[in-house]
C-alpha cells in the first residue's frame, strides 16, 4: 500500500526536472519518503532525487518498494493538471500501475503503467574530489550557458577569485564572470582553483528546470555536482566532464 497527497504543481515541476535527464527511472518508496537515483543511458550524467514525507500533505506506506516509471509518460499525464489541483499518488500493485488522481473542480484519474527497471536499482554515487563550491542564481547560470552556446557546444566552468564560464569557438570566445558583490552570486568557497569543461547540451537540459538558487561544485577535470531544491524536494545532478586528449 502506498498513498501520498501533494500539490499537483509541485509534482509537475519535479517530474519535469527528472525528465530533463532520464526517461526510465526506479522510484524507491520508503517509510521516510520517495527517492530515485539514475544515470542517463550513456552514463554521462546522474540524478539523485529525494522527497521526504514532510513535503507531502499526507504520506502512507506499509512497506518499501521500487517501482519502474517512464517519466515521459508520467509527464504527459501530470502536464494535464491545473495549477491549484491536489494530486493523490496511489500504487495499484494488482494492475501494476501508479494512479494519479487530480482533484480540482472535478476528479480525474490517470493510471500510468509501470515498467521494468532492474538494472539501475543499486547505483552508488560517484566519489568526487571537488575543490570549489559556488551558490548562485539559476537564471544567471542559464544565461551564461546561452552566451556560451553562441560560439561553442561546450563550456568551461571555473572557480578562482570569481566564478567564470568560458567558451571558445571558430567565430570567437566568450567569458561570463560572476564575482563577490554581484547580486547573482550568493556564496563562493574556493580551497583551490578549479576548472572543468562540459557538454553544453547536457548542461542546458539540466539547467532548464532549476528554480531560484542552485549550488555548483567543481574540481579539475572532475564531474560537476549541481544541487537545488524544488518546493522541499532535493535534487543532485552530476555531469561527467569533457577532457582534452
Amino acid at each position, binding site marked *: 500500500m502506498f498513498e501520498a497527497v501533494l500539490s499537483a504543481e509541485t509534482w509537475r515541476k519535479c517530474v519535469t526536472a527528472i525528465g530533463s535527464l532520464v526517461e526510465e527511472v526506479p522510484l524507491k518508496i520508503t517509510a521516510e519518503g520517495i527517492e530515485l537515483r539514475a*544515470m*542517463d*543511458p*550513456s*552514463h*554521462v*550524467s*546522474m540524478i539523485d532525487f529525494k522527497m521526504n514525507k514532510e513535503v507531502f500533505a499526507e504520506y502512507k506506506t506499509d512497506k518499501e518498494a521500487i517501482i519502474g516509471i517512464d517519466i515521459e509518460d508520467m509527464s504527459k499525464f501530470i502536464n494535464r493538471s491545473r495549477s491549484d489541483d491536489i494530486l493523490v499518488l496511489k500504487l495499484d500493485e494488482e494492475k501494476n500501475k501508479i494512479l494519479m488522481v487530480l482533484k480540482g473542480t472535478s476528479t480525474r484519474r490517470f493510471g500510468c503503467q509501470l515498467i521494468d527497471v532492474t538494472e539501475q536499482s543499486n547505483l*552508488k554515487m*560517484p*566519489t*568526487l574530489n571537488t575543490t570549489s563550491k559556488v551558490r548562485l542564481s539559476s537564471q544567471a547560470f542559464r544565461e551564461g550557458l546561452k552566451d556560451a552556446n553562441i560560439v561553442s*557546444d561546450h563550456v568551461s566552468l571555473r572557480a578562482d577569485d570569481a566564478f567564470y564560464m568560458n567558451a571558445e569557438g571558430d567565430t570567437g570566445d566568450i567569458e561570463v564572470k560572476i564575482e563577490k558583490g554581484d547580486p547573482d552570486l550568493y556564496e563562493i568557497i574556493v580551497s583551490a582553483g578549479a576548472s572543468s569543461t562540459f*557538454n553544453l*547540451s547536457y548542461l542546458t*537540459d539540466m539547467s532548464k528546470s532549476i528554480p531560484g538558487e542552485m549550488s555548483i561544485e567543481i574540481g579539475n577535470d*572532475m*564531474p560537476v555536482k549541481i544541487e537545488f531544491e524544488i518546493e522541499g524536494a532535493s535534487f543532485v545532478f*552530476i555531469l*561527467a*566532464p*569533457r*577532457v*582534452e*586528449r
Partner: protein
Amino acid sequence: MHVPKTNLCTICRGHKKLCGRGICPILEKKRIRESIVPLINKDIFGASPSAFFVGDWNYPKVLVGPLVPPVHEGTDIFDLPEAWHGKELDEIIKFRSLLVRSKEFVKVTDAKNPKGYLEKSQEIVMSKKPVDVELVLKKTPHFALEFSQFSPPTGPSEFVESFKIAENPKVPRVIDKINSDDIKASKGISLLYDKDIPVSHISKLLSAGLLGEQKNRKLVPTRWSITATDDSLSKSHLKKIKSSPEINKFEIYHDEDVGNKFVVILFPSMWCYEFLECWLPGSLFLESSLSPNVISDHELFDGRNEYASLTAGAYYAARFSVTEHLYERRRQSGALVFMEVHPSYHTPVGVWRVREITRNALQKKPESFDTEEEVLKKASEILSLPFEKYREKSNILSFKHRQKTLSDWMN
C-alpha cells in the same frame, strides 16, 4: 540555373571550361530549353504522375496545383525520386522541366473541406499511377526551371484556366483508408510507410492536406512536407532502435550519384548521429578558387530540440535512411554521414538525392573493422577532402573522444 559571378564566362563562352565544371551550365540550360519549348503551349494534355506542388510564398494563401507534362508515356518516374538512382543529372533535369506547374491561390485551411480545383488536384495526388489530365492555362508559360533546396526542380508555371481529369485515378486502398480516417498525420505517415507507399508519395499526400485529423487538415508547402515526412518516419524508427542491441563492429558504406559522394560509418554505440557536408571547390556553391568548408549538425541519444539549421533538409533525409537501415536490422549504433558535393553536380535537384544515395549505400555489403582508427582510415581513402577537415568539425567524434563517463569516478 547557376550562372557563375565572374567574367570568366565571357572569355570561355562554354568551350574552355574555365570555371572548372565539366559542363557549361549556361549552354546546358539553352540545350534543355530548345528541346522542351516546342512541346509547351497553353493547352497541356498528358499523364500527371500524381504530382502536386504547394508553394510557401504568401503563406497561408499559397500557390498550389498539379504538375502535368505534355506527354503520356513514361511519366510514372517523373515525380518518383526512388526511381532516379543511377540516372544522369541531365536526364532528371529534362523530365523535370517537362512538368508544367499549374497554379492557383488556395488557403491552406481549405484542405479541411476541399472543393473544385483543390478536390480534383487531391484526386490526382492519391493515385498510384499517372492520371491523364487536360489542363488549360491562362496563357503559354515562359520556359523556366524552378529550383528549391528541398524539392526537385519543376518546369514552367502558369495560372489555370480550367482542368479536367480524363480517367479514373487508381487509388491504393490503404491511401483511401488513411485519408478517410481521423488520425494524427504522424500515425498516418507510419501506416502508409508500413504498407510500402514510397516516401516521396507520402510527403505529397501530407502536402496536399490529405493526412491528419480531419479538423486540422492543412496544405503543407512541398519543401516543408518533405522534411516533415523524413523527420516523422525516422522518429518512429528511433523509438524501436533505441531499445535494440548495439552493433559490434565499425562498418563503412559508400555510394556516389549525380556528383554527390556519400560515406556512412556505423559504429558500436548508443544512438547518435551526425551529418557532415562539404561543397568542393568548383561545385555549385563554391568558386574553384575558394577553400572548402565542412558544415555539420548532430544529435545525441535524446535527439534534437532545434531544427538542424546548417545542413537543413539533408540532415533529416539522411537520418531517415540510416534509421530505416537500423530498424530493419533491429540494431542500434552511432552514425556519421559524410556528403561531398563535386563540381559535376551542376544543378540542384533537391534533397531526395541525400535520402536515396544514403539508402542505396546502406543496401550494399559494408566493409567492417574492429577499430575506429581503421574505419576512419578507410573513409579518408574514399573522401576527396583531407579527412582532418572533417575530424576538426565533427562534434560526435570529439564527443566520443573527449566526453568522460561517470564510471571513471565510481568504485
